[in-house]
């Protein structure tokens, strides 16, 4: 088959106007199935390509930047599968959640209208609730498709400028989705999100430009570390790491994340958190470890420490949260710390573990955010202190939430354990290899911090699902199947990957072996 990459990246973009029109004319259900089938088709193509093997496509672009290409290998195809898989099943989940949200928006607009009095003429008076919902669902799914495409493009790009473009493209729909359909102080938060991630992107671009101008080409294939003077190399690597660190929401650059994830509509939080911020990790693998091994060699220990701090900090902040979505947001920070920890581990298995953590986090955190969404729709609250004993009312949700929590905690047989043990093993292995007491200390603290992860997750479960059922919640009903079936899919997947990780490991390990041999040659 040809043009696979072109299809999977641009099909959603090209068809997104159609989604808008469909939504306006025919309503949310058909639009949802439309978006779902596009994404499902693309996901199947990617999975097909993943099974077949590594694959590249190149197209002529401008002379200035080089070629416009797409690459599937042991790193990118796994990110691609995870991103599109989540996008596909979250499309299903979006329908009931977003209809709920549109109606809520409509009602608040209507009540605003009444307060303002009858002399102000606005659009609300002229359209009915159904029309409003139809139109909004059109906008939502159109933006949703563009968002998906932006994320996918970033991980498939083969050119620095292309990478940067997609990196920014995914921000725009995310910004609008947040600004239109968020909760709370959504305008301010969406600006904040846009601003900080944009700052990160600009720093990233600076790094790219330095590298590109020194090398003389922006194509990944042409990047050669030896062409860059040593002092500049380190600086540009740091710029790239900081740029990606903002996306990863690593410690000190995590300001935007709790706000954005807390305020975004839940399906989007479930995409932002596992899929989007993890792209920072992808960037670190591709741009730092693969292309700038010398810089990585210098900086690995700092990434390791940074990862450790992020892990612990995210975890302890999660302990302090009452808003369930903010709790998961801090937990995401902590999980990104794990990934950073693995990236800094300087060993094949450690990095493999970090990539497994991306998959795991997508599955686990996806499940947990969907749980939060069900709470918002069915219980109409997200404050943990008002919840309790819901396991009896929401049995399927509770089971999925427990599986999600176990995945994040890294308890076998969920996929979390497969990521975690490799990650930590990689860390200690390097410590022994290099005979470095510092690394041993970092390893021990990292392992201890898994107890923090466990504490906040179990405590969350206890406060939400166990204990006495408050009298206000006796009427609560289980969510509908549009919301539950995506959760069940993820719950089953996490256990399958946990028991049989070869599905992904067979592709990850050779890639990691390849890039680490480069690093090991330095010594």
């Amino acid at each position, binding site marked *: 088959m040809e043009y696979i990459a072109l299809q999977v990246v641009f099909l959603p973009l090209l068809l997104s106007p159609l989604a808008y029109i469909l939504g306006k004319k025919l309503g949310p259900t058909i639009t949802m199935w439309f978006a779902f089938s596009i994404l499902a088709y693309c996901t199947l193509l990617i999975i097909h390509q993943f099974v077949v093997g590594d694959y590249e496509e190149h197209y002529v672009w401008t002379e200035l930047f080089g070629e416009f290409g797409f690459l599937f290998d042991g790193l990118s195809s796994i990110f691609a599968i995870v991103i599109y898989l989540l996008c596909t099943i979250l499309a299903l989940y979006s329908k009931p959640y977003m209809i709920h949200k549109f109606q809520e928006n409509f009602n608040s607009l209507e009540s605003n209208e009444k307060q303002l009095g009858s002399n102000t003429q606005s659009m609300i008076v002229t359209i009915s609730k159904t029309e409003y919902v139809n139109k909004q669902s059109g906008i939502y799914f159109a933006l949703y498709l563009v968002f998906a495409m932006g994320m996918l493009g970033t991980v498939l790009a083969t050119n620095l400028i292309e990478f940067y473009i997609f990196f920014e493209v995914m921000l725009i729909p995310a910004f609008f989705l947040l600004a239109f359909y968020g909760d709370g102080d959504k305008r301010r938060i969406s600006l*904040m999100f846009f601003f900080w991630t944009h700052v990160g992107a600009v720093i990233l671009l600076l790094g790219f430009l330095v590298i590109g101008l020194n090398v003389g080409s922006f194509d990944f294939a042409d990047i050669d570390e030896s062409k860059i003077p040593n002092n500049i190399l380190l600086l540009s690597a740091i710029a790239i790491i900081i740029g990606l660190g903002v996306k990863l929401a690593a410690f*000190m650059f*995590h*300001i935007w994340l709790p706000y954005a994830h807390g305020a975004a509509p839940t399906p989007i939080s479930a995409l932002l958190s596992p899929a989007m911020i993890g792209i920072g990790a992808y960037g670190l693998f591709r741009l730092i470890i693969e292309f700038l091994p010398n810089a990585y060699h210098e900086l690995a220990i700092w990434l390791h420490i940074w990862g450790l701090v992020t892990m612990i900090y995210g975890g*302890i*902040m999660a*302990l*302090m949260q009452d808003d369930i979505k903010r709790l998961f947001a801090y937990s995401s920070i902590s999980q990104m710390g794990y990934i950073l920890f693995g990236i800094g581990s300087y060993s094949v*298995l450690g990095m493999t573990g970090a990539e497994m953590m991306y998959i795991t986090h997508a599955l686990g955190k996806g499940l947990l955010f969907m749980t939060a969404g069900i709470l918002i729709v069915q219980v109409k609250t997200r404050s943990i202190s008002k919840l309790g*004993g819901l*396991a*009896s009312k929401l049995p399927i949700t509770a089971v999925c939430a427990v599986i999600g929590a*176990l995945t994040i905690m890294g*308890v*076998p*047989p969920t996929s979390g*354990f497969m990521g975690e*043990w490799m990650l*930590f*093993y990689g860390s*200690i*292995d390097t410590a*022994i290899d290099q005979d470095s007491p510092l690394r041993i200390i970092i*390893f*021990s603290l990292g*392992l*201890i911090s*898994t*107890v923090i992860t*466990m*504490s906040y997750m*179990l*405590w969350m479960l*206890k406060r939400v*699902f*166990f*204990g*006495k*059922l408050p009298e206000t919640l006796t009427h609560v009903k289980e969510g509908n199947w549009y919301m539950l079936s995506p959760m069940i899919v993820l719950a089953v997947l996490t256990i399958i990957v946990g028991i049989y*990780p*070869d599905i992904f*490991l*067979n592709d*990850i*390990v*050779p890639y990691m072996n390849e890039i680490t041999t480069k690093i090991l040659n330095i010594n």
Partner: protein
Amino acid sequence: MEQNLNELTAWMIWIIPFVAAMMMPLIGRYSTNIVGYVASGFAFLSAVTAISFLPHVLESHEVHNQVLWISSINLKAGVLADPLSILMANIVAWISFLITVYSIGYMKEDKDKVRFWFWMMFFIGSMQLIVLSDNLLQMFFGWEGVGLASYALISFWYRDKKQHHVGTENRAVLGLIEYYSPTHAGMKAFIMTKVGDIMMLAGMFLIFSFAGTFGFRELIDDTTWATNMATNGLLIPAIVLLFGGAVGKSAQFPLNEWLLEAMTGPTAVSALIHAATMVKAGVFLVARLGPILFALSMTGILADQFFEIVALTGAITALLLATQGMVNMELKKVLAYSTGSQIGYMMMALGMAGLSEQFVDGYTAGFFHLMSHAMFKASLFMAAGSLIHVVGSRFMTDMGGLKKSLPKTYIFVWASGLALMGAPFITTGFWSKDAIFASIYESEHVFALPIFIIAVLTAIITSFYTTRMIGIIFFGKRSDHITKMEESGSNIHEVDKIMWIPYGILAVLTIGIGIFGLTAENNIHDMFSEYLDHSFGIHSIHTINNEESEFFDNLNIIAVVFSLLAFIVGFALGYIFYIGKYVDPNKFVNSNLVFYSFHKLILNRWYLNTLIYWCFIVYPLLLIRRIWRYFEKTVIDLGMNNGFEYAIKWSSNIIHKTQTGIVQSYLYVFGAGLLFILMILLV
């Protein structure tokens, strides 16, 4: 062909319960009443599979079968069925079968049967996975699996009703109330064992880093890894870390506190998980690793420190928990203390085994005690479950004088209680405890004397608190609680057949095997010495003499005398206070300051629990709250977010002010700028 069949059977032992677990929800849709019977049937099937394996393993030593698991890093999954694991698998399988039968009756009126049975089956599968795994990583799957099942079953009654709590309401120790709900207890157990588990993981990683394998067989076959580790000084840390996992799971000091709260679960669960099987996983791990390490000592790498740590941990735990068992008023908690303390004995035996010349003696003693303890403690717990069920209260003070109303339970509790006390010559408990005493005494290590003293002291205490327990429950006057119950029309009577038969069987077995205790012990001893010789090359000095020796030659006179003495002293003290009631225990405790303060110390659990809460929960949370308030909320949020916002606003204001619209000032600035540039150019 036969070999293939055997390999398949070995896999089946642990796969069957998992299949059963998966089936539970499906059967539950059809009818919730038959779930228990189906689960029991599967447990029976697994048990039959296990026992059908026994003769084969005893003949040809072991079955080891591997399949490729994680191919990319060349890890294999496998089963290793050697005498140790098959014996353990049989204990687990049969005890769990009996407990599942008991649970059918126990859980008859519960609504969430499907969940209960799912986790019970999941637990049995995970436990068998631990036992039969041929490598550490796969074992860790089972290890966490039992932890998960334990968490789920401790907080089984997740609605946190009052009758399911443990502890005394409003009773504060050092400012913290020791009264825990099921969900709290489950969380505590999971997190505390996790602390052990991460140590175990670290140990596993260290070994894997040097050996490149997790497999037990591979670790025995090629010992260069140990040499390398020993030269780096990492061997002892690695195995001590592995032992950390055992400490957590087996509730040994200092990670012992979760076991007491674990009693919030249904009693069937306490019997299965927190007495007979899961807490033995740690002992099993030591039994798995012990021979490997002892075999190393023959190649010149000494692991003495490891065995010393094992023995000391066991000794401390045994004494620490036994003392607390003397004063507690909650029936299940007394049994829980006793469980931890008895596991301490097993650890002592295994540790001392490694320190003595005759490894197999201590090894057999530890394992024999594991077997006999599994039987009598499961029986005691099930009986306790019936008592609590009948009386409707977990406090022994609410019982009293039940001898006549529950005659069968009374007899069975005596039988298994005597085993726990180590009543001479007829109970398994006596023989296994005696074997431990003997192995400690014979080890001739520096630690032998202090540990021997602790062991005897603990035996006295054990005998005392068991007598006390039986005395309070069955003797004396009926409590107010029971009188009230009878007045309101409810009749105190024996529980269903399906409940008393399982613990009856175990109680009878304890005595039955006890009568032939020495023969049983000798058989196990022979089996293990052959196994250790064959698989690890550890030769036993005894084996050669054994066949010609007289029956009682194996008995160590000093050990027998001391275990007899311990039994008699403890029983007599218990009789004086609680059965004969010659002295009032309350008055006795309050009679002088020493007794009073000691009583308070052990009643407050040596303050260990409270200290753990203060140091690891309360203060850290306070600190985190500070960080949250002054760092995250202030520095990050206000500083970076709002700070940036204000900076922009401020600069916009300044720029805004310059836009005055007055031509003169614009010209002035323009002129000044021009002058400035000119000056730069000139210079």
